[in-house]
């Protein structure tokens, strides 16, 4: 009977009814949805201010029904700091790619964490610069070919893939740091919980919270969405292990 039927999965309120501009099979969409769900879960939509970064996710404001400010490439953490310092009763999050956060924006990221700014950063690590057409990212795996590492990443030339979650977890100001992926039902659930926890910690004013999402860029990897998912599982996770790297107990703050 139709009447008894209940919607058990629907688009979160915070996500507008608008199609994403992302390429087919791009994980940005999954991450967007989970962030929106976390905002819904804690009923934060009306007091959230989002910070869009420059990368494939720049159109954050087209999808999230919250106030949004657009940051220059790499500076989202600094912008978020400004927002939070001005309105410390609001929920502030930024959403950034690996080029944005780990390359050009690494100074702002580290110092924002070190200051223990009470904000949440969602970090999309897809081992490549998506928006600009697939150049080397600081997270590009060794041997991976990109449009600016045409012979494959070589550590003598380009250095090593950088593990941001591990670095940030070492800083005193970080309250929560986790790395997640969407490769299996189990990992999807873990990702959802981690993103929720980050917002919950912010709500409870515990300090800086950070979730790194291992993400696929089928377009620039030159793989199908399904093969891209496999690459995340088989190539990325071994180098970028999943898990919670730091979780502060409330007491630590005092």
């Amino acid at each position: 009977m139709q009447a008894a039927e209940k919607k058990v999965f629907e688009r979160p309120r915070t996500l507008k009814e608008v199609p994403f501009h992302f390429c087919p099979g791009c994980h940005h969409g999954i991450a967007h949805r989970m962030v929106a769900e976390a905002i819904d879960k804690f009923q934060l939509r009306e007091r959230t201010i989002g910070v869009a970064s420059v990368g494939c996710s720049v159109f954050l404001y087209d999808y999230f029904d919250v106030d949004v400010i657009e940051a220059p490439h790499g500076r989202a953490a600094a912008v978020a700091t400004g927002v939070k310092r001005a309105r410390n009763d609001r929920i502030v999050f930024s959403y950034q790619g690996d080029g944005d956060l780990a390359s050009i924006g690494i100074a702002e990221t580290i110092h924002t964490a070190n200051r223990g700014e009470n904000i949440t950063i969602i970090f999309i690590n897809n081992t490549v610069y998506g928006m600009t057409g697939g150049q080397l990212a600081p997270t590009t795996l060794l041997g991976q070919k990109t449009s600016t590492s045409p012979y494959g990443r070589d550590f003598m030339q380009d250095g090593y893939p950088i593990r941001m979650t591990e670095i940030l977890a070492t800083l005193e100001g970080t309250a929560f740091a986790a790395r997640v992926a969407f490769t299996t039902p189990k990992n999807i659930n873990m990702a959802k919980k981690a993103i929720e926890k980050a917002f919950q910690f912010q709500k409870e004013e515990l300090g800086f919270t950070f979730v790194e999402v291992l993400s696929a860029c089928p377009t620039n990897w030159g793989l199908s969405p399904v093969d891209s998912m496999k690459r995340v599982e088989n190539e990325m996770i071994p180098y970028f292990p999943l898990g919670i790297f730091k979780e502060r107990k409330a007491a630590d703050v005092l």
Partner: protein
Amino acid sequence: MIQSVIMAGFGGQGILLIGNMLAYAALGEGKHVTYMPAYGVEMRGGTANCTVVVSDEPIGSPIVGKPDAVIVMNLPSLKKFESWIKPEGKLFLNTSLAPADERTREDIAFYPIPANDLASQMGNARLANMILIGAYVKATGIVSQDALIDSLSKVISERNARFIPQNIEAIKLGADQVETANP
């Protein structure tokens, strides 16, 4: 003699590829040529278009407001570019994706070509662009068909060289459509 053409369609339809082919063909014939893509690298999805100008004299603007011809591969592009065509210019329309009755102008030569359908009949839907450029070159004589065919080796990587014969076939099929389409 100076001739300009705008080609437009969805991102994946190979618009820039045929634009490049035309430019190489013109170069091959010793003509002056400019190829100008309107691109959206930093924006995913959306449409693609490019402008090619071929001339016996040095070329000024690679941008044209009133092209001699337009090749259109989908409906949004028809809506955008039909009005641009110079009076008495030419419209090459992929009627598989943009119905002929959506067009509005009568003062231009019209070449309706069901490119996707023809391509599917050939067994490869991705050849639609080749059919259209074949038709365009035939109808305008802007370059010779031979020059166009020669350009394939410039734009198709060695890895895909085996597809060249198919493409030649499609170009010729397109050329054959010209009479049918606009007799």
